[in-house]
């Protein structure tokens, strides 16, 4: 066991997979210089072609990754910041997501697209996006949202070995968070949620950094005698609907916590799914706790309170229990 940060876990996964399979390579802006901290040492170990600095052209280099994947390579694309994916949306949707299907399985795109979300740090509207929900709407993509170092490593390794395009949204607020990582190799399957805190009164489904806040909330609620179950879906596509539904069957109450925007967000998807399939078990309205449908302001005085924290989550859970 080692106690390492989320970012170190990501770096480990990349290094291990690059060492294991020489078709795996990393590409993105300034990756060789390890500016963001997940590619330290890779240049020395694997050379400049497998740690490939790209010009600033997100749409083009995403296409390059897709083309390389078509001929047998396994690119890991680092967008650094999730907001820059918008430039690559056409390649991600029109090519990465659609190629396997529209060519009738003649090809497939085993590529990983990593993107970090740096909200809550005063970097304003153009750099603070938490945009996984947009890509969940695109069949053919898989969407991964790790909430801790252990998951980050295990899910990234699975993503690299997956034969399909996988988008990994890393919560920048978690990069520095530490956690225990086993010394031996492990992989985490997609579509398997993690019950982070067992409970029986209310189900809290939370995403990425909201998981930690929800666990804190659950601990606070426990002291008040409220037993909250916190579920981390880990992958949003595929989504482990069974674990969520089972929990709701037990608790009768669902709170979904998300740092993304509300409208058409992941929280809404989970809420809708339960309203369809878990309805008869519900004893109270489903509640979404999300960032507001607002762009992200620069001033900390304004951004403060935009993302549900433990106190807000506990409050919402209490309200649900009282319904």
């Amino acid at each position: 066991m080692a106690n390492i940060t989320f970012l170190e876990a990501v770096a480990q996964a990349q290094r291990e997979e690059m060492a294991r399979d020489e078709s795996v390579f990393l590409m993105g802006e300034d990756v060789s210089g390890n500016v963001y901290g997940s590619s330290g040492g890779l240049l020395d170990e694997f050379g400049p072609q497998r740690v490939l600095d790209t010009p600033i052209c997100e749409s083009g280099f995403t296409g390059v990754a897709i083309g390389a994947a078509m001929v047998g390579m396994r690119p890991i694309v680092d967008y650094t910041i999730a907001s820059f994916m918008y430039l690559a949306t056409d390649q991600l949707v029109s090519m990465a997501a659609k190629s396997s299907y529209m060519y009738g399985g003649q090809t497939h795109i085993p590529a990983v697209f990593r993107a970090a979300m740096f909200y809550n740090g005063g970097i304003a509207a153009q750099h603070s996006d938490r945009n996984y929900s947009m890509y969940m709407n695109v069949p053919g993509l898989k969407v991964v949202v790790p909430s801790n170092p252990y998951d980050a490593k295990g899910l990234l390794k699975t993503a690299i070995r997956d034969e399909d395009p996988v988008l990994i949204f890393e919560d920048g607020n978690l990069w520095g968070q530490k956690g225990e990582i086993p010394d031996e190799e492990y992989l985490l399957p997609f579509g398997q949620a993690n019950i982070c805190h067992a409970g029986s009164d209310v189900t809290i489904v939370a995403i990425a950094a909201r998981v930690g806040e929800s666990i804190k909330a659950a601990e606070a609620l426990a002291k008040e005698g409220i037993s909250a179950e916190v579920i981390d879906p880990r992958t949003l596509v595929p989504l482990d609907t069974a674990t969520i539904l089972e929990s709701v069957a037990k608790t009768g109450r669902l709170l979904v916590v998300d740092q993304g925007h509300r409208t058409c967000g992941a929280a809404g998807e989970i809420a809708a799914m339960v309203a369809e399939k878990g309805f008869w078990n519900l004893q109270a309205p489903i509640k979404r706790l999300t960032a507001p449908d607002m762009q992200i302001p620069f001033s900390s005085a304004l951004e403060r309170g935009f993302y549900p924290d433990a106190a807000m989550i506990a409050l919402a859970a209490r309200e649900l229990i009282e319904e």
Partner: protein
Amino acid sequence: MCAAVNFDISVWGGMSVDQSLLLEMYRRMGLVRQFDEAVQKLFNSGRIPGSAHLSIGQEGEVVGACMALREDDYMVGNHRSHGHPIGKGAGVNALMAEILGKSTGVNQGKGGSMHLADFSVGSLGESSIVGSGLPVAVGAALGSQMQGNDRVTLCFFGDGASNQGYFHEAMNMAALWKLPVVFLCENNGYGVTTPNNRAAALEDISARAAGYGTPSSIVDGQQCLEVYDAVTEAVERARRGDGPTLVEAKTYRYHHHSEGPLYDNMTYRSDEELAAWKLRDPLLLFREQLADSVAVADLDRMDEQVKQDIAAALEFAEQSPLPEPEEAYTHLYRTPVVVIEGELSNG
């Protein structure tokens, strides 16, 4: 820079290609032409869903460029791409079946006219999002470079596509990394109804190559051998590891942008212009050029064979079954994801 060369066919034939190659070129040009003529008929009879973009008139550059490739080289097409896989050596049966949406189609009926692809002959697919194939081709070339093989990727794109940001990003990365890719601009003068000179600041797309230090040339797209020569030189450069080349083939599509009545009364181009181009039909020009070195009987025999091949392809396509409805739910992912049937609206 790669200058376009005007061939003396007999000398040239003796130098670097033999008669069988010339005949094969002739055959493929015929196949491309007749394939599209057959598609046109199918479309007019209402047999083809969606749209169909024909390359009748452009066979010279299509085949000239493709034939400069090795069998294991790669090729990327676009929306006007029935001819490209044929040029690359794909069988016409499965292409025709695809166009009719049959289960025996190259894509098992999932792709259709705008997405013909035959990966078995290095045809890496045809994206109909204008320009989006350019970086994908660069990626395939990067893959070859990384794998240490000497495969070259040929990327077809239109004059219209050259105004997409993709063009710039692809050209820059290919030049920067000296990738084995050949960019073949099919400058047929129009994007839908918009003439090239109202979409591109300069009429010659090749003028942009200098900005990346990339060699370029302009060739007569109606002269199959001229294209073949320029692309051969570009392919050699790519294979040597000397990086990309941009070849601009000036050509023309006889048909409107796509089939159907939509363009019937459009005046974006004149009848005279069309007639002038038809005088320089790539098949006619090539037949004339071959006259000295290939027997007319051989050419006629080839024409007949092509006719039969297309007839057989039509027969094959017509006889093939439609895919079963449940096949709509395969191929989205390679590594399976549980799709809960009840969640599908038609489940």
